[in-house]
């Protein structure tokens, strides 16, 4: 393993800002894995730390294939992590809205540009990503539809689901989108949590990445074989919303199978405690995402359900 500094900025009063990478094997730039990009992405950082630990073991045993290099970038934004701020410390910009970056631009454009220069030539690009809404996910692979997406390859992770996502205008400045524009096969790996560390889903994600590395002929690994993935597009998902604001009392969690009409959650008045809304599933299916905060605004997407399909 070789630790490299991929990008650095000198600060006035803080230690240098550094984006560090951990390289395994040598030769073709085979796979790059990026972890936390926002200051609250503890789970994403944790997943990378476990992956690095595992790859060190595999490298010591000579199990990384000759002529292949794997790069892991566990954290793109140590400054924000260390002060517990989600976005960039001074101007609150999001590095994952700055790709492909610009080396003569503003600070976060330079960080994105410096990182992208170092990672844009890999054959495969994986990012441990988080969702913009607080909640819990069934671990899955998300692929952006750019015309360069490779769904068959996404199935090689062995997650239960591959989610196909049609990019919106603001998605065009994300790492995943730009990796694909530069012809890197890019995938986002979602685990259950973001701010909290969940070792079970982290382990599943790390095993899935190792599984992907094995199936793309990058490492020898005898581990998790995985599921036969089902592919679902975001347009096919059923979004369930609450009609009233209040306390959110979830009765079902991510990954659970639900029946049409089944009660998923209750909303209760924050002052008087009475139930103001009973949220029922509009379909048979599996819960991909659940809201996970004590209170909820009116009309929030509190569940996303993958409906059952006959052909599955």
């Amino acid at each position, binding site marked *: 393993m070789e630790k490299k500094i991929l990008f650095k900025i000198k600060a*006035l009063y803080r230690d240098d800002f550094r984006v560090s990478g951990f390289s395994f094997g040598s030769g073709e730039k085979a796979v790059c894995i990026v972890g936390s990009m926002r200051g609250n992405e503890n789970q994403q950082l944790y997943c990378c730390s476990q992956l690095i630990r595992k790859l060190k073991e595999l490298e010591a045993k000579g199990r990384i294939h000759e002529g292949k290099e794997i790069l892991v970038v566990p954290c793109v934004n140590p400054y924000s992590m260390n002060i517990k701020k989600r976005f960039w410390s001074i101007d609150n910009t999001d590095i994952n809205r700055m790709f492909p970056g610009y080396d003569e631009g503003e600070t976060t454009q330079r960080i994105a540009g410096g990182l992208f220069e170092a990672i844009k030539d890999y054959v495969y690009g994986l990012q441990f990503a988080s969702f*913009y809404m607080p909640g819990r996910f069934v671990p899955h692979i998300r692929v952006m539809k750019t015309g360069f997406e490779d769904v068959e390859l996404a199935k090689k992770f062995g997650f239960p689901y591959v989610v196909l996502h049609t990019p919106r205008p603001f998605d065009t400045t994300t790492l995943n989108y730009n990796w694909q524009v530069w012809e890197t096969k890019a995938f986002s790996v979602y685990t259950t949590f973001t701010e909290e560390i969940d070792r079970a889903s982290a382990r599943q994600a790390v095993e899935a990445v190792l599984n992907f590395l094995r199936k793309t002929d990058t490492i020898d690994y005898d581990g998790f074989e995985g599921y036969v993935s089902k592919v679902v597009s975001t347009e096919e998902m059923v979004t369930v919303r609450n009609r009233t604001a209040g306390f959110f009392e979830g009765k079902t969690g991510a990954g659970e199978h639900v029946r049409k009409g089944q009660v998923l959650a209750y909303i209760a008045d924050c002052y008087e405690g009475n139930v103001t809304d009973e949220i029922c599933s509009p379909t048979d299916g599996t819960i991909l995402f659940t809201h996970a905060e004590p209170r909820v605004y009116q*009309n929030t997407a509190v569940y996303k359900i993958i409906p059952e399909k006959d052909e599955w």
Partner: protein
Amino acid sequence: MIETVVKVDLPVDEMLQIRKMRLQPENGGNGRRISIVTGIHGDELEGQYVCYKLSDYIRKNMKYLAGTVDVYPALNPFGIDSITRGIPAFDLDMNRIFPGNTEGDMNEYLAAQIVRDAAGSDLVFDIHASNIFLTEVPQIRINELHADSLVPYAREANVDFIWIHGASTVLESTFAHSLNAAGTPTLVVEMGVGMRITQAYGDQLFAGIVHLMKRLGIWKGEDFDVRTPIVSADNEDVGFLNASTSGIFLKNVEHGAVLKKGDLIGRIVNPLTGTVADEITSPADGWLFTIREYPVVSEGSLLGRILYGKENSV
């Protein structure tokens, strides 16, 4: 009359309301409408003064009002109330969720209702104030896709500068783009600085708005003379000055300065060592229409923008 554009129940004993002041003659007016919108970013307050001044002026001179004036002072009331640029609790830039979605979450729903309400205006002003980091001369920014329809209005708006910039996919989710794409002409004004009010700039824009109301047949009262703006349609005309290093920026000139090549714009200093880390000079003759206001800079921070070759500011 104050009208509620959209309202949403909040969890704990509160209703989120986005409101507007509708000013109209008693007979309902001639059907023409101008909308003044501000407060998408909660830290940009320059538009607050313009809204106040315009409402006050019209209410005292109602006999001259021939059409409808809608004034939306706070599209992001949570942000204004909490000195937050985006939408608090969501860490979301409101100007990246338009045109919204009536079936979407709370913020998308709000955005969709705002667009529905403002659509159909003969002209919309979307007033911004740069941000807390930069001070801007009064200017209108126009996406090149909509230049043909917007530049004639912008020329009459009493701003110093019209900047026609390149199209960008990410900007398709702004309020102005959504309305322009739907055929409602919308001008984006940038002026002054975040978290402050520059009344002179507010007065300047107020005069431009009244002048355009007159041109649109919405106002029959006094008109104001407007200045002739510099128009830049060539992206090569505009130079960006970014910090070469981190430090404290001390400006040497104010925005609006006319510069010769080599003129000192400012210094980046290191208070710990008592040294100058960099001196920023003008790379060419030009007009400094933006300058850094917030002193702390990181490598890459924007320090200023120069319009090259325009030796005379207005």
